[in-house]
Structures are given as C-alpha cells and as structure tokens.
C-alpha cells in the first residue's frame, strides 16, 4: 500500500525515491536543505536514515569479534622455523618448556578438560512450565568471569614468560566473553540454532585452550 501523504511524497520539494537516491551522499556528509526538509516531514526516510547510521556504527564491533583456532600459532611457528626465520629458541621459552614437563600438570589439565566436557554436553533441564525443546542445549546460567577451573589453569600458566601468560589470559577471557554473549542470545531465544552453534563453538574454543596446554606439556615429555 502506498500512502503518499504519510511518506512525504512531494513534500519539501523532494520525494522518498529522490531522497534515497541521494542518501549515499547524505551519509557521506553532503547535505542539502531539501534533504533536511524531507527528513523532518517523512517518517519512512528518517527511520531508514536512523537504521543505516545504526548499522554503520555497530559494524565496528565486528572488528575483533572472532578468535582463531588456538593451535594456529603452533603451525605458523613450525613454518617460520622451517624457513629459518626463527633463528634460535629464546632461553625464556626453553625455561617455560622445562617447567611444563612437571608431571603433576598433566593430570590437572586432564581434569580441567573433563570438567569442560561435562559442561559442554550437559543437557538443558526441562522444568515443569517449560515446553520441550527439540534441540538439546547446554544449561544456560550466568557464567562467572573467571571460574575455579580457569583460575587453576591461569595459576599453572603463570610460570610462562609474561607475554605468553598474558596472551593465554586474553584468549581465555575472550572465550568466556563468547560464552556469555551466546548465553545472552539464548536467553532471548532458546531455540535459536545459530546461537546454540555459537555457544558450542565457544565451549569448543575454551576446550581447545585447555587441550593446548595438555598437548604442549605432553610434547615436551
């Protein structure tokens, strides 16, 4: 249905189609009084402008949204070594690997891995008033910023060179942030398959971080 009156057609010397054709320039900062007049009288075009500004502003939040596979650095490092770009192991790094050999770290990391697995595959409880969902999702509960398991891992990686320990902490924080984001999304729409997948991915990411610590420890034994 086209309602010329409510959409500003013919008002202010400019109609909606003319406004939209010039909207790209308007957003770039080239603005005319005709456009301003049309905007003040047309809800459709002012809504459109508000939405496009909102999309553009929110786009920045995607800039560092995703985390690569935690093992990617190992692949890059191996390639750099094979090309001779990494010339000699840092003494600090050797010290780190020597510390990692400590036998007790392995069972601790393995326990953490199991804990993460239980968390990942624990199905959602169906309450009396809840309808049964076709898709089983992890139980949604507000995740603490740093869990007891995380604290244990961070305590063990504290013996790494500071740059590595900080990087590990950042990775863990990001994985936890992803989990919280996905859980928030699922609270709004528990059946959203996309958010469920994001939550699974986030848990897998966290699991990989734990596994990475175990693998590195085993490699050096």
């Amino acid at each position: 249905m086209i309602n010329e009156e409510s959409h500003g057609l013919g008002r202010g010397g400019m109609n909606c189609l003319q406004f939209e054709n010039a909207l790209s320039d308007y957003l770039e900062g080239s603005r005319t009084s005709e456009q301003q007049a049309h905007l003040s009288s047309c809800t459709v075009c002012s809504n459109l402008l508000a939405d496009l500004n909102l999309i553009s502003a929110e786009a920045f939040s995607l800039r560092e949204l995703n985390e690569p596979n935690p093992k990617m650095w190992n692949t890059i490092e191996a390639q750099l070594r094979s090309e001779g770009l990494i010339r000699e192991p840092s003494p600090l790094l050797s010290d780190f690997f020597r510390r990692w050999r400590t036998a007790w770290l392995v069972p601790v990391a393995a326990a953490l891995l199991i804990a993460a697995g239980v968390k990942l595959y624990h199905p959602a409880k169906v309450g009396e008033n809840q309808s049964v969902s076709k898709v089983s999702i992890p139980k949604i509960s507000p995740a603490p910023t740093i869990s007891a398991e995380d604290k244990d891992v961070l305590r063990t990686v504290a013996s790494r060179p500071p740059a590595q320990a900080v990087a590990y902490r950042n990775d863990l924080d990001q994985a936890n942030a992803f989990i919280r984001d996905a859980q928030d999304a699922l609270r709004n729409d528990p059946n959203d398959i996309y958010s469920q997948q994001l939550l699974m991915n986030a848990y897998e990411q966290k699991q990989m971080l734990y596994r990475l610590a175990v693998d590195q420890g085993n490699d050096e034994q």
Partner: protein
Amino acid sequence: MTDAKRPKGAKLSEPEAIEKAKQGDAEAFEFLYHLHKRRVYSLCLRMTGNTASAEDLTQEAFLQLFRKIATFRGESAFSTWLHRMAVNVVLMQLRKKNLPVVPIDETTEGEEEGTIRKELGAPDERLAGSIDRLQLQRAVDELPPGYRTIFVLHDVEGYEHNEIASMVGCSIGNSKSQLHKARIKLRDLLRVNRAEKAGKR
C-alpha cells in the same frame, strides 16, 4: 607508543617486539601474533564467510608479514601495514577462486527502487535502538560476496573509499554506491530476522 600496545603484564612493547622479531626472536613473533590475531582473523572471516578459508588466510597473512618484517621501516603504523597485507591476501584469494570482489552491476539493478517500495508498506518498522552483534555478524555473513567486501572494508575496517577503490580495482563512485546497497541489504536482513523472531514468540 601507547599503553594499549603493551598488554598489561607484558614485558615487550610492540616496537620492541618488532625489533626483536627482525632478529628472529620466537617470543617476539608470538607476541605480535597474539596482539593482532583477532583483528586479522575477524577480517578474513567477515570477508570470506568461511571458517576454514579464514584460518588459512590468517595463517598466510601472518607468514607474509613475518617474512617481510625485516623491511618494515615504520613509515606507517605496524597494524596498518599488517591489516593491509591481510586484505590483499584475502582479495587475491577471492580473485583466484573467481569470487566477485566487487558486486556485478546487473545483479543489483532494481534493488534501490525496491527498498523504497518495501518501506512504503511499513512506515513504523525500524530497527530498535541497538543491534545484537551476533545478529549483525550473521547478516553480514549472508551478504553477497561483493557487497560484503565493500561493507567490511569501509564500515568494519574503516578504510576510505579511495583506498577501497585502489585495493579492489573499482571506481570511488562504485565503492560508495555498493556500500550503500550493502547497508540497505543488511537492514532488510536484520528486519527479516527480527520479524521471524517476533513470529516465533
């Protein structure tokens, strides 16, 4: 050098790490990788919409960077240099796979008028005051490849139209026009998504 470039508790600053990496220091390479990995990976993922490709391209971008790091003289910011390298790696890959870097004009004709027509039937429908970033990520992933490239380079990465035109090989006007169409398309996708969610409730 700002504090932002020295992660809390880190021994190295970015310039120190660059100098050490030039000498082949493993810890410095790793520091630089961790400092920039999220931005580079997110860029690759947004532009390809594919996790496996994004991982390959991220790896390739960092390898190229580290192979050339000895030539970095600091005329531009290190991050600018790296991100430009990552963009080039992705664009080269898209071209190799014959995926459109710039939208094909024929496929976009008529869409501008369509936008207004859709608006006319629903004057009060607009996005709420904020957009969930996961919804936005999903909508960007659904954009046609050419639109996605321009949108990511401009609105996500912050490149100017003249830089985009030079990188992807199109005119400045074309870059502006495709960005506008990409935003319109995103708005449609977000509104459809919102309407679907409302319908489920």
